């Protein structure tokens, strides 16, 4: 169990560092999500299941969903969509952007 705990701690540190060094915002949110999941397992190992449930629901679930929605609102997820062949939706976005300018 001690080894398992150490592995989890190392994962936690790796996640925390790679969140700040990741260039893609979407990737950093997903890493943040995994950070919360590891944290909730660690809470169980530290014998506080109350916190583990809350961390899993709030940290891994709702916070990251709110982050995703915010990214979509500020059009930070467009770069990913450009690879797709769906041209119609893109055109409307660029039209709207030009209209806004």
């Amino acid at each position, binding site marked *: 169990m001690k080894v398992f705990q150490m592995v989890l701690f190392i994962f936690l540190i790796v996640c925390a560092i790679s969140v700040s060094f990741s260039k893609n915002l979407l990737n950093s949110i997903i890493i943040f999500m995994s950070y919360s999941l590891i944290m909730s397992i660690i809470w169980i190992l530290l014998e506080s*299941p*109350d916190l*583990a*449930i*809350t961390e899993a*629901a*709030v940290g891994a*679930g*709702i916070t990251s*969903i*709110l982050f995703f*929605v*915010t990214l*979509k*609102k500020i059009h930070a*997820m467009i770069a990913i*969509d450009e690879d797709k062949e769906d041209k119609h*939706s893109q055109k*409307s*976005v660029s039209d*709207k952007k030009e209209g806004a300018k």
Partner: protein
Amino acid sequence: MSRLLSEEEYRKTKAFQIKRWYRSEKDPYIGKVELKPQKPFVEDIDAQKKRIHDEAILKRNIYDIEHNRKLQMFSKFYRIVSIAFVISLLAILLYVVSYLPPVGNAANPDNNEVATKYIEDGMKDTGAVNIVTGMILDYRAFDTLGESNVLFIATCTVLILLRVDNWSKKKEEEENDRLYEPKNDIILQKVAFFLVPMIIIFGIYVILNGHLSPGGGFSGGAIIGSGLILYVNAFGFKKIERFFTQRTYKWICFVALLFYCLAKTYSFYCGAHHLETGIPLGTPGDILSSGLILPLNICVGMVVACTMYAFYAMFRKGGF
């Protein structure tokens, strides 16, 4: 209107003027101050050229680091001062840490009688098997009231910041909202059809068993809120508005917070450690036990679930 004065006399009184000003029925400046329409500012081409030229010279002179001695000095000074500041801050923090008592010392201030009392008398005082819930919702219930109020205030702030009032804009937001998503994704809908009831039932279980097993109002409410968010993602806002609108949110939050306030502020007004509520504690381990903890858990859970969903809806389309 006034009952004592006639219509014309009432119009001359101060109260009528204040009322009119408050309702902004009449602008007091209209007819007294001359209003001139403003001309748009037009810059002729020569002035524009001169301005751009000046800006270019200014920029070249300022950012020419090799010939600008002041800038060189400043950048060196800036680096040295920032390093010195960080080092001094580190030294101060380490100096403070060296004054902390060693970990695990029996004479530490955290080893006092409070923790012992909670562990020994917790079940007898509150009737809750889960000692954490007993502490949160019985000994420290007033703190939890503040916590749920903070959540409510946070939603109000998000509402002020993100709410879209204009109808045409609202429509545009709703259309723009699903630009990158499939509208009726059959896989997501089938998965949500099975998952959403399970998630919500699990949330209700966590709330109702808050005083018996791990969990409680906050975590159960967050689980129910995430279930609602999944439902919205799968089926759209039209379907959820059949049973959950802004009115529902307002009434649920209002009733839950009001019940919590009425149930728990007696300790605030009386300032007493533990007053008798008159509600029997029951046998520890039953669902209907431990006095006020179960209804308070339900209140907190409802507020949190509504708040989580409200955050999501507000971020998504600026309203419900």
